[in-house]
């Protein structure tokens, strides 16, 4: 399982990095989304992989932490998901505004040949 997930993180981030370095704004925005998946999974994986043990506690009684998934990375990732949505939205708006102003979707606001 670990090897599959780390390969997945690698592929997601490689695709993301490649897209972020591309010249068209839509490529960059897709790249950012892919990168955010990769980073979220990476942070999540820092709590190790624990199938079938969500951090939902019984009401009262002794709790053995080793029986549950680590809740801390989950809490971190939860807000990160919402924030990455917000940054995607912001970038999208900047992208369409810059497209309206400059007439091109190149990230520099002008084609390379100009």
């Amino acid at each position, binding site marked *: *399982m*670990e090897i*599959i*997930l780390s*390969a*997945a993180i*690698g*592929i*997601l*981030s*490689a*695709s993301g*990095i*490649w*897209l972020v*370095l591309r010249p068209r704004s*839509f*490529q960059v*925005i*897709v790249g950012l989304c*892919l990168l955010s*998946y990769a980073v979220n*999974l*990476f942070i*999540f*994986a820092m*709590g*190790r*992989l624990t*199938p*079938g043990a*969500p*951090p*939902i506690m019984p*009401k009262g009684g002794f709790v053995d*932490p080793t029986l*549950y*998934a680590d*809740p*801390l990375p*989950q*809490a971190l*990732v*939860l807000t990160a*998901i*919402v*924030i990455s*949505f*917000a*940054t995607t939205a*912001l970038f999208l*708006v900047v*992208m*369409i*505004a810059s497209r*309206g102003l400059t*007439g091109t979707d190149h*990230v*520099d606001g002008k084609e390379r*040949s100009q």
Partner: protein
Amino acid sequence: MFQDKGKASMAEHNLFLLLACLPFATSLILLTLPQSARGASTWLSVLSLVGGLAVLAGFLPEIQSGNVLRASLDWVPSLGMNMALRLDGFAWLFAALVLSIGVLVVVYARYYMGDSDSLPRFYALLMAFTGAMQGILISGNVLVMVVFWELTSFMSFLLIGFWHQGAAARDGARTALIVTALGGLCLLLAMLMLGQAAGSYDLGMILRSGDAVRAHPWYGAMLALFLIGAFTKSAQFPFHFWLPGAMAAPTPVSAFLHSATMVKAGVFLLVRFSSVLGGTETWFFVVTGTGVTTLILGAAIALYRHDLKGLLAYSTISHLGLIATLAGVGGPVAILAAIFHICNHAVFKASLFMAAGIIDHETGTRDMRRLSGLFRPMPFTATLAIVAAAAMAGVPLLNGFLSKEMFLAESVDWHNGTWLDDHLPYFAVIGSTLSVAYSLRFIATVFFGPQATDLPKPPHEPPAWMRRPVELLVLICLVVGIVPALTLGPIVNTAARSVAGADMPYYKIAVWHGINAPLMLSLVAMAVGTLIYVASARAIPHGPEGPFLIHRLRGQRIYDWLLFRLTWRLPRLTLSVFSTEALQPQLRLLVLTAIAVAVASLWGGLTMAEDLRLHAPNPAFALLWLVGGACAIGAAWQAKYHRFAALILLGGAGVVTCLTFAWFSSPDLALTQLLVEVATTVLLLLGLRWLPKRRSEIAEDKLLPAKIRRGRDLVIATAGGLGIAAMAFAVMTRPLISNVGDWFLGNAYYEGGGTNVVNVILVDFRAFDTFGEIAVLAIVGLTIFALLRRFRPAPESIEAPYQQTQDNSPTLDDYLYVPSVIMVWMFPLLIVVSGYFFFRGHDLPGGGFAAGVTLAIAFLVQYLATNVRWVESRITVLPIRWMGIGLLIAAATGMGAWLFGYPFLTAYARYVRIPLVGEVPAATAMLFDVGVFATVMGAVVLMLVAIAHQSLRASRRREMDGIAAARTEEPA
């Protein structure tokens, strides 16, 4: 003399604090007054200043007996900064001077400022300045003193630029701010070093530790920085150039700040710290040398200025040089003379500035080449100005004569036998001579000679109350000049004693000391000065505004050149060398740096664990990521030419991510990821509409450079991906060390009152982080909203899409009819789902984030099913209010904990039994979650709706273009 006060100190303490706060409080009240409240604002300002004077008068007996008053409030105790106040004789005298001249300036300004100027605003600035100036004088902590010092620079900036419509005022204000504020920064450094050297930032302590300071290894640096601070403020050479530029200020400001008070702050500091930093040879040479240079240079330039205020400004520079010379010489008598001249100069220079203002006000010009023979039309003003100018020249029986006499006596006395000391009398006489010459020029040009006929306004006397302050000041010049020992004598002695030491003998200021060297020098100066003026009177009006050669060397020009280089050329040069406007190189650099840092820190350290903790691979999971990885690579492949396909593939990768969260026991993440995925996809779909069509391939892409770039980026991306994968694998295969997560698991129920630990962390344990995050979300929402309000779509995107223009048949109205009906029906259902997610959140997967996004999707579905106009005629969504209310609820919940004496956002949890429903968790964290829910919902809806509205604007523009086109066709 440094004894602390014992009895009756409480009332005194409070009065002292009142004195410090009164001007600032007045300033705040004045800011609320309307522009028409001219009388009220004048009265308020006068009363405030008179109140301050009354408090000072009450302190006089204490001060006269040599006591030091103190008061203090804790401010930043951890930095040793308490709001300490300290009042000794010197500070008392100076504060009384500032407040009394303030009263006169306020009265004068009432008549000087025109109806179009906002008098309350002017007075508010003036009062704030007075408060800051007084703060410098009475602060008992040197760091607090620096704060007030910078505040005077800042208020002076606002006051010089009061008529901000004029370019001269703006430039003058900026120059003054830059020069004096830079000096203030130097002073701050000096004070920090001084505090370190003396072991305390308390002024009283520092004043007593002069020996330790002078022996300290930092003494040289300390002195240099201190003197830069004092010299910039007091317009000493070579920093003098800002003062003439500051004459663009309204005349009351010049009279108050640039003659009587603010510029005196620098010499105040020199005198105040002369017992700590002074007494060394360096001090003598630098301070006296600078003072003498400034004295002579200022006086020489003043003689050649054509502008009335320009002459007075350079004369002020010259007199400040005189005071600095005395402070450099040091010793009890020199200090006393310096303090005495500070007072005298303030009185006669303020009256001269006011007189210049009256002349400007009543004739419309300040140019001495045009002004002439004003004695006849305005005899009273002329008499007053002549007496004040005579005081400036040092004519006997006027106050200026006395302090100048003392200055000459000091210059003649032997101090240390150095070159500068030996030649001091000559320099002093040159300065006095020139000051006689320019005073004479002022009197002779403006008031005598043929009466000018081409003035902008016919000259006449000003309103009586505009002249009253000048009359009073001139009266003081006369009274002090004739009976000094009965008027200023005692308090000047007290002031000097508080600086030079309690054992200083009483110095009797007298008009007549017999025929001695100073008197002879004085007479020589007067005779030669008159000769100089008479000889050059004809040539000056036609010549340049400065003596031979010196007028070519302009400090202002050097400053402008330097400023231009530093703030315009240098940044651009640096940017062109070290930066690029293109995004790609920046991002590439960022990624490469990240890789380099990771490699550098993990080199040799990234080892695999001995026995790998591996879960057996599950084929279904492998298959899942086979699809996910293919989606990611496909999205990367297609994002340029097939955006829609890339978007669908991106969604595929997102869904696989979401399933991964679910697989590894994280239902909360899976839920949120799924919901956010929906919102993101819709968002990007809405954005696709505004991008250019790309049907044909970009020709450049086939060329070699583009191929090289792609190849290089592929290498970078592969390296990055491999690195992250290796790190993830290395960490995942190690056993988990126990961490803070265990504590959260163990205490979520008992401390947070919930069984879903992730939710409890978000809304209880780490609620402050969450609060910050929802605030960020709200800010992003507002930013998007604001950006799109001024949005201009590209011309070709305004056209209606192909599908809408093709067919006007009714089939278009029925497009996706059945799905849209179902989607409309989904609305109540989604609201229920959202509520369900919210309420189970504390115990089971769900919570405010998920519920908020769900409700946002409920609205979004309505927009998708029908159209913007249909939805908005039926539902009123006010996303900004949702956000605002959400943030308020979250903040109020947090602050509610204060009521019970707990820190911000301390949660309280319990279960409540409700009939029929059963046990319900009722934690204050739940209330916080309501805030999270409302903010998330509002922000997401705001973003999506703002983008959706752009189509509406485009279609409106289409309609307007159509109407415009029809109009232009009509006449033809």
